[in-house]
């Protein structure tokens, strides 16, 4: 069950009450039970997958520690563990993708071998979590966890199991030693984050998705300018959706007394793509940095090798997101952009005597760079949304060959003039757009404010109870009234037509 569903909200509400009513020593086992129930709701049978991955990596870490540091045996166990972990991920997620590639290479008739498997919930996040755990144990960063239930809870912790953040064991496991008594401030902070995440996802992201889906469903039926607007809207949608969900995960964990690492740090306020990638899906990008990029050599090597490392890291990041070429190209494109930016930055440092260009950028320059960065990222997001090269190229073709800005503007104005009955890109003009634009403004304002102050922390203060209640009520009402959920309402279908 995803966080923005009735069943999850009911489950979580009841869980919180039970969690804090029961004695402290029962809370962690309760969390483990709740996490497994959460997973079982998705698929009871795949609970066995979760348990199997847990057992295998628990045992693997213990086995690693049996060998001396630097020994072959230690390396072999790690290698075996990683092969198993990545193999499982590859099997579930990428079998059909690679089978298709192989089939194309071999060039025989018929169709590729495909498997219809139910992919385990959160498999990418789970595997990356346990893989990082094995590596950390191997490196000696942390000791292998001896109590299996604690490790099981690290793997299955329900606020993060489905869509992250990818939490490191060294950060999570020690928190299981805390008592997690009810802490008003943590509760309030967590609730604010959860509600705001829900707002971002249900009110703004899902509304933006309507525009994107409408245009992408009929690219030829829209002008290039419309397609460009949809592409830009997707850039916002993906952020609002993912960051919103992460915020709910982090907020939910905070309500339960756990601290998860921040996953997004106002990425669209970054002035360059490289900075963007330091602020976007932080748990994944740091994972890739620590477990892939740096072991490959990182940036402490030749320029060619550095570019290679960057491309491989980003390319695999793309593949991690999904098993099709669109994601891979998206990853590689971003890798190329970051690599080129690195070169430009180095060039700039040489010219300016080693000063970092970004640190010295004026607000206007930062803004312009930020806008340019947004457009560059939007271009790469096209591959992510389109998912195939063909559709991506189609998008670019529409934009560059059929822009028709005046026609687009006329069509927009015509729909606006219709008022209540106007529909623009699948969204009602009178209701949908004001809510969307207002929502975007609120998110933007919060993001800007968050650069200077931790808003949830500030609002959690005892002295701001009334303000906090107003925020709670506004967010809840906004989600209830303006959230994109349920069925459409048509007055005609409810008017009683004499049975």
């Amino acid at each position, binding site marked *: 069950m995803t966080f923005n569903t009735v069943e999850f909200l009911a489950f979580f509400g009841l869980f919180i009450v039970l969690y804090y009513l029961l004695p402290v020593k029962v809370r962690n086992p309760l969390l483990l039970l709740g996490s497994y129930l959460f997973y079982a709701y998705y698929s009871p049978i795949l609970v066995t997958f979760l348990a199997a991955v847990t057992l295998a990596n628990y045992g693997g870490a213990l086995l690693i520690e049996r060998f001396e540091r630097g020994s072959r045996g230690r390396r072999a166990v790690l290698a075996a563990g990683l092969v198993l972990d990545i193999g499982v991920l590859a099997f579930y997620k990428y079998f059909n993708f690679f089978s298709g590639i192989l089939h194309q290479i071999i060039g025989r008739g018929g169709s590729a071998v495909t498997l219809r498997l139910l992919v385990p919930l959160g498999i990418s996040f789970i595997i990356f979590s346990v893989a990082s755990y094995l590596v950390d144990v191997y490196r000696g960063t942390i000791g292998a966890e001896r109590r299996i239930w604690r490790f099981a809870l690290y793997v299955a912790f329900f606020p993060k199991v489905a869509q992250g953040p990818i939490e490191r064991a060294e950060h999570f496991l020690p928190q299981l030693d805390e008592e997690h008594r009810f802490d008003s401030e943590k509760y309030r902070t967590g609730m604010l984050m959860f509600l705001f995440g829900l707002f971002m996802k249900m009110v703004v992201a899902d509304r933006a998705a309507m525009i994107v889906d409408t245009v992408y469903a009929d690219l030829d039926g829209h002008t290039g300018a419309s397609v460009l607007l949809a592409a830009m809207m997707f850039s916002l949608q993906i952020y609002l959706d993912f960051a919103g969900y992460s915020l709910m995960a982090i907020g939910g964990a905070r309500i339960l007394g756990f601290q998860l690492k921040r996953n997004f740090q106002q990425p669209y306020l970054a002035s360059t793509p490289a900075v963007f990638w330091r602020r976007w899906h932080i748990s994944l990008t740091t994972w890739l940095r620590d477990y892939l990029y740096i072991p490959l050599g990182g940036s402490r090597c030749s320029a060619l090798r550095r570019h290679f490392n960057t491309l491989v890291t980003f390319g695999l990041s793309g593949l991690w997101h999904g098993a099709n070429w669109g994601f891979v190209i998206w990853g590689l494109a971003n890798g190329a952009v970051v690599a080129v930016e690195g070169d430009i930055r180095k060039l700039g440092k040489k010219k300016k005597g080693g000063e970092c260009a970004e640190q010295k950028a004026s607000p206007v320059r930062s803004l312009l760079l930020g806008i340019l960065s947004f457009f560059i990222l939007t271009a790469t997001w096209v591959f992510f949304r389109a998912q195939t090269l063909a559709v991506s190229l189609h998008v670019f073709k529409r934009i560059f060959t059929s822009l028709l800005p005046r026609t687009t503007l006329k069509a927009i104005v015509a729909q606006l003039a219709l008022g209540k009955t106007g529909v623009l890109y699948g969204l009602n003009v009178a*209701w949908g757009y004001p809510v969307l634009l207002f929502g975007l403004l609120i998110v933007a304002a919060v993001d800007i404010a968050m650069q200077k102050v931790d808003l949830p922390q500030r609002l959690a203060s005892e002295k701001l109870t009334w303000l906090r209640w107003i925020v709670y009520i506004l967010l809840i009402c906004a989600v209830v009234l303006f959230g994109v959920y349920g069925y459409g309402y048509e007055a005609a279908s409810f008017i009683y037509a004499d049975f």
Partner: protein
Amino acid sequence: MKIVKPILKGVAFTLLLSIILTALTLIYHPKWYNYQDKGQPAGFYQEPKNTIDVLLLGSCNMYSSFSPVLMYERNGITSYNFSCPDQEMSTTYYYIKDALTRQKPKVIVVEALFLMQETHTGNREKYNRFALDYMPISANKIGLAWETARTESAMMPQYDATASSRALTFASYIFPILRYHNRTDLSNEDVTYFAENEFYSYYKGGVPLFSYTRNDGNRTFAVFNEKTINDSAKKYFPMIKELCDKNGIALVVAKSPNYARWGHDDSYTAVAREYVESFGIPFVDMHAPQYNNFEDYDYGVDINLNVYGMRKFTYTLADYLIENYNLQPTPLSEENTAKWEESIAWVYDRSLGKGMDLEQGHLAQIFNKEDAVCVRWNPCLDCGEYSIYRAEGHDESTAVKIGTATGETFDDKDVTHAQGYTYYVVPNHGAKAGQRSNSMYYVFVSMPTNVVGVTRDDGAMKVTWDGEEDCYFRVYRRYYKALKFSAWLTTEKHRDINATDIKEGELYTFRVSAAIRDDGVEYQSKCVLVDILQQGKPVITGISSADSANTVTWEAMKNRESIKIYRRNAGAEEFALIKTIGGDRTSFTDTEVKPGKQYEYFITSVAECAGMKEESVPSDVMSVVTIKN
């Protein structure tokens, strides 16, 4: 103690949030629910506790048929018609459970239709919302909401049936704002509505129809295709019986007259009767002759009884209940008595306002039958005979007595087309003996004749008829699943309906009546009904031969039960049916042929809809010579 303050704060916040969300719910809830004109379960909760002796439940078949107000006026017994549109047995069960928390009825009457009827899936959500939205929150409402969410998403293909959508559906029945939050047509009325309107039901749930029909019976109405007890009834009817037994309440199942097939086809009634009586529960078929004889004029425009039929039904059922369950007038407080009196005045005022007076001895209706003008009056309870007077034209002073009648109707057969007549009646006995009624003027209009309905080759439908030259004609069409007729006015003697405006392979009913205007008032003849099971001429798109077999292809047709392929061998005189295949097929390969021979083919389609089955006109004939390779 540390936890106490946060808990108190939590409670306070929850209360505040609840108030705000409740206010939003009241604003967002659609205001299509006119309490005084439609089924009114909401009004039940306004009745003082333990003051209802008879509880009636069911669909429109019940709330259009039984008037608690008329029973109270006549017999002094209180009741409530706790019905709502298309009330399923699950709703009936939970309604009874909830009702028993505040009332102690002696008898519960459940209407029989929903033992068998399946609901239009397209309307299911609307009717579920009617049933649930104004039920106060309780364990029973939660139980009904759960059951409703479970079945609703399964039966409505336009909604996905995932667990998540079921959970949301369930939550939306408890918190309606979750359903109506998408409303974009809010107005000022939405804000003030609940402050300005009351839930109290003057009708006590029984809602009269103020119209009458001129149709023949046996109208097609295919809401249930099989003569079986439906799944909801199989599960909940035994539970209803158990509930009544446990509470010492007598349970009766009554079948109300209904103008659709259910009302007239005894084979449906037999199934329901057998089922009900297997539980030892009485099944009272109010349409049966020993109880009543409901005529055309007792029905409203669609399928349910109008206010006159309702009065007949109410009095007859009341007599049955009093006789069999020893019901006595209900002692009430002064305040409650005043409320009931107010309801009586409301019902009479409302009827009068709609031109259908309930006053005894009052001339109620005049309408045309096939060859007569039918005069109807509200019978006086103490009078068994009436004299009927008629004048030609408007001058009442020239009226002469044309006959006597017992009961409440008289057919005047001595009438001429386009001639107007004025009628009044005089009761011969009782309190109103000798007092003439009001008079009414009516013009006899002859029915259209030779009404024929066909599907044209191109799939459009055509209705033709003959009629008098001085008439114009009203044509009504109803798609079998629809609730209302759509209507046209024409002076022509035919009506064509475009193929794009109809659903292929499905049933339509046409109703044609002639009309004349006299002094600005329209008078209609009796209607003639004709059913058309739409099937255009099948179109063969190709015929070919290869490998000693012939293949015929044709344009796809929707909603066909089967396709019949006919073949004539060269030299033969007659075509023979060689194969019947599924209606969704678009080709057939005939392997029972010999190379070098010529064969001719045509196809027909067979549609079945609402119990009517027909074979279409044949397609054009196509021929082919069978080729070996």
